[in-house]
């Protein structure tokens, strides 16, 4: 057994992460929805309000985590769905690439938005 250095194999890592992000998302997504539709109504949202929220560090961190986990969860979910349909070889490589890039772009853009709101 000693020859097994790597902590995780791809299959079990992503599987576990998909579940962990899901568990995390349950809480944050519910909070997010509740916060922005019931506590504050969606039609009342404006820059100032968003700014106030985002300036609190806890909220900022939560939202970044939310963004990262949701992106991973969503992108990995889509990838899994494609593999389940039996894509293989080139198509699989392409999917990995496209989804990876899209995910990174999404996170980068999301962080920029958050920073703009928080005024960093």
């Amino acid at each position, binding site marked *: 057994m000693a020859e097994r*250095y790597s902590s995780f194999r791809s299959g079990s890592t992503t599987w576990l992460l998909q579940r962990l992000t899901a568990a995390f998302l349950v809480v944050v997504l519910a909070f997010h929805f509740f916060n922005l539709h019931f506590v504050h109504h969606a039609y009342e949202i404006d820059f100032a309000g968003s700014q106030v929220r985002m300036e609190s560090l806890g909220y900022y961190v939560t939202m970044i985590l939310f963004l990262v986990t949701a992106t991973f969860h969503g992108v990995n979910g889509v990838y899994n769905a494609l593999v389940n349909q039996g894509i293989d070889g080139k198509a699989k490589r392409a999917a990995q690439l496209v989804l990876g890039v899209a995910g990174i772009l999404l996170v980068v853009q999301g962080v920029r938005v958050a920073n703009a709101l928080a005024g960093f």
Partner: protein
Amino acid sequence: MSTQTPESETESETEPEAPATTDHQQRRMDDKRVRAEARDEAAAQAATEFEGETVELKVFRYDPEIEGKEEPRFDSFTVPFEKGMTVLDALIFARDEYDSSLTFRHSCRQAVCGSDAFFVNGSQRLGCQTQMGDLEWPVRVEPLPHQDVVKDLVVEMDHFYDQMESVQPFFDPDDLPDGELEEQRQDRSNRENIKLSTRCIWCGACMSSCNIAAGDNQYLGPAAINAAYRFYMDEREGEQKRQERLEIIEQEHGVWRCQTQFSCTEVCPKDIPLTEHIQELKREAVKENLKFW
């Protein structure tokens, strides 16, 4: 549409071409005539003959070599119903009485050989284990979905067998107990744990019901994963083999492909909790990998 009714059998009756020469031939010709008459009679009766209930069987037909059957179609057979009649009984009746070319696998008639899994009224079942009386009539019988059809109800099983054998379904302990006639002891509770998984009869119903297996041909499938479970969970399995088996289980097209659709568990004629076993192995794989973290 019914293409092979009892009546149509008599149409193929031809007159003997050559005059009879020997006694023997003469007798056989006579026999033939008698048979033809008997058949005519039976045919005439067939429509009205079955007193009591009859049930209509719609069966998928296909044969790459026979004209008219290359295009898949459904044939109807009217079969007298009796209490206790199974789908397999009805198929045998249809074959023996109406159309001897009706083809399906079957052998044990008691749900142990696993050869007669069909798609009956939209779900995967063993013909011999399914009572006609429990089904909605007419009864529609098709070959298992997701597998290529060889002929009529016979599907290509090779891929299923390959998957079953790819998990190295055999026992391989590191060492055997010393001494003549010494057993490898096994705890009762451990046997209980693996008991259900050992019941699999390789019928392929589960694999056929799984949408993931339909989409991903490399997916091991529920039955093969269950076979791996049977050994992985056996306390007597050798350490070396256990690691090897884990690698098979958690390969990309292994347990992770299962999306917990549960249809495999629902159709398994041996009531094996397949989804549960697959899930347990996923957790085992995660646990094993976390150990080294």
